[in-house]
C-alpha cells in the first residue's frame, strides 16, 4: 500500500523517506454515535489535524453503532479510537484526544520520550 501512495518517483519517495512526519496520514476515527466523548473527539481530531497535518491527512469518521462489524475487524475495544493506518507503524489512539501531547506522540509527530 505504501508503494502506491508514495508514487513511483524516486525523488518523491526519498523526500517522503527523509521526512516521514510530512507523509500523508490516513486516519480513521471510530466513534459511538453522538455521545459527548465522540463529539469531543471529532472536534479535537479535526482541530489537531488542521493544526499539525494541514493538507497532509485523510480523515474518515466511522460510527460503529452504524457499522458494528467493523469494530471486530479493526479490534476496536475502547471508544473513541483513532487508528493511524498510514504511515506505518499502525497506531491506535484511544480517548477524546484532549491530551495534545499524547496525540502527537500517538501519530508519531513527536518522539515518545520528548
Amino acid at each position, binding site marked *: 500500500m505504501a508503494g502506491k501512495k508514495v508514487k513511483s518517483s524516486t525523488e518523491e519517495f526519498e523526500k517522503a523517506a527523509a521526512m516521514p512526519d510530512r507523509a500523508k496520514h490516513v486516519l480513521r476515527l471510530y466513534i*459511538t454515535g453522538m*455521545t459527548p466523548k465522540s463529539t469531543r473527539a471529532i472536534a479535537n481530531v479535526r482541530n489537531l489535524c488542521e493544526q499539525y497535518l494541514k493538507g497532509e491527512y485523510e480523515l474518515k469518521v466511522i460510527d460503529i*453503532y452504524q457499522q458494528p462489524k467493523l469494530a*471486530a475487524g479493526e479490534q*476496536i475495544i475502547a*471508544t473513541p479510537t483513532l487508528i493511524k493506518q498510514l504511515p506505518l507503524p499502525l497506531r491506535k489512539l484511544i*480517548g477524546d484526544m*484532549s491530551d495534545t501531547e499524547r*496525540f502527537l506522540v500517538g501519530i508519531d509527530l513527536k518522539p515518545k520520550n520528548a
Partner: protein
Amino acid sequence: MVKKKPQGRPTLICGSAGCGKTLFAMEFLLRGALNFGEPGVFMTFEESPEDLAKNFISLGFDINDMMSRGLIAMDHVYIERSEIEETGEYDLEGLFIRLGNAIDSIGAKRVVLDTIEALFSGLSNAAIIRAELRRLFLWLKERGVTAIVTGESGNKMLTRYGLEEYVADCVIFLDFRIDEQISTRRLRIIKYRGSSHGADEYPFLIDEGGLSILPITSLGLDYPVSSRRVSTGVPKLDAMLEGKGFYRGSTILISGTAGTGKTSLAATFADAACRRGERCLYFAFEESPSQIIRNMASIGMDLAKWVKKGLLRFHSVRPSLYGLEMHLLTFHKVINTFNPQVFIVDPISNLTVAGSASEVKSILTRLIDYLKMTNITTFLTDLTRCEGSLEQTSEEISSLIDTWLLLRDIELNGERNRGLYILKSRGMAHSNQIQEFLLTDRGIDLVDIYTGTGEVLTGSARAAQEAGEKASDLARQREVERRLRAQERKKNALEANIAAIRAEFDVETLEVLLMAEEEKKRQAIQAQDRLEMAKLRKGKPSGPQAMRSKKNRKG
C-alpha cells in the same frame, strides 16, 4: 452439586494457570448450544480462535462446525499495548458493540469472556476499566444472557484484578493440586447467591470427553435391592450360599494372599455371567486381557469367545497411570457405555499406589454406591498383605461388602493348599465350612476338607487319610459280613435243635397218650372181668359189699 448455572447472571471462574478455566467456560457454552438450544458467544482475549478450535477438537468438540451452524460465535479481542496511545477520556463502548453484535448475530443466551483481565494489562487506566466492567456486567444482566467470566487467581484476592467485586453472584474456584506426584483437579463453589450449593471441594476431571465432576459422596443410601440370585460359577460355592449364589447387585469381595486363586474365581464368575447372557466388565490392574485369557484357558475356561461375542470386555490399565479420580471416572464412563450386569475389579488393592488409603476408600465407596444404584453385581478382589489379620482389607472397605469370601493358604505336611471360606454374606444362611479350593483343568472345584478325627487335613494328607479310612472301612465291612454269616449259621443250628427237641417231645406226647389209652382199656377190661367174676360167684352184682369185701380182703 447445584441444579444449574445461575441463569441470566454472571459467574466468575477463577483459578491458577492450567486449572481448566477456559475449558470449563467453553464446555458451558458447548453444552448449552448442543443440549439446551442456547447458542453462545465466546469472547477470547488470550488465545486465537484457531488455537481454541484445535484445543477443543482434542476434547471432542468441533467448534468450527458449530460456528458454521450458528451455535457458537467467537470474537477474538486482541489488545496490543504498544500500538495504543491513550489521549484522554474513553470508554469501552467498542467492546459492548462487538459483544452485542455477536450476541445478536446468533441469538446467544450464553456469553463467555476469557479472560477479561487482559483489559487491565492492555490498557493503563484501571479506573475506566473498572467502571466499564461494572457497566458491562449490568448490561449483560439486562440482556438476560448467562455470562461466564474467567479470571486468574491472584495473591490475596480470588483474582488478580479483583474481578470478584463486579461478578458477585456466583464464584467458582478451580484448583489444581499435586499430592505425591498425582494431580487432582478440584472445584469449589465459593458463592452462589440465592441457591443452596455444596460448599465442599469437588474433584473434577478433564479427559477426551471434556470436563466432568463427580460428587464426593453419594447423597443417600436409598438404592433398590434385588432378591434375585446369581450363580458364582462354582456349583459347590453356590451350595455354600444357600445353593443359590450371590444376590444380584450385591458387592462381593474376594480377599486372599498371593496365588490363592482370586483371579481364577473372578474369571469363573465372569464366565458364569456370560453364560447367562449377561454383559461383564473386567477391570484388570495387574494383567493384560490376553494374559488373563491364556491363564484361564489353562483351567479349562474359554473367555476369548465371550470377548468375541461382546459379552465380556476387559479394561486393563496400570493403576499408576492416572489419579484415583480419573480411575473413578474411567469406571463411570466404561460402565455407562458398556452397561454391564457384572463388574469386576481385579484387584482393588493396586489402587493404593495411586492414592492414600483414605482416598481409595472414598473412591471405592463412591464406586460401590454407584454400582448399587445401577444394580450391577460387583466383584472385587483384594490382595491381602502377609502382615496383619486376614479379616481386614488394606482399603478398609469391609463394611461396604455384602459377601466376603476369603481364600487362604493352608500349610500342612510340607504342602500349601488353598482353602476357601465365607467370612460374611449378608442376607443368607451361608455355610460355615472351610472348603478346599482346587484349580483343576475343568475349572474350580471345592472339596470338603477332612475333619474326621478333629483335625483339618488338606491336599495329599487328606487324600492319604481318606484312603486309609477307606481301607479300614472295607475291613470293618468284611468283619461285619463275617459276623453276620456266623450268626446266620448259629440261627440255622438253633432252629435244627429246636426241630429235634420238638420231634422228641412229639414222640413222648404220643407215648403218653398211648399209655393213657391202654390204661383206660385195661380198666375197662378189669371192670368186665370183675363183672364176669361176680356172675361166676352168683353174688350180687357189684355192690358195696363186694367192694367192702374187696377192701377187707385188701386190709
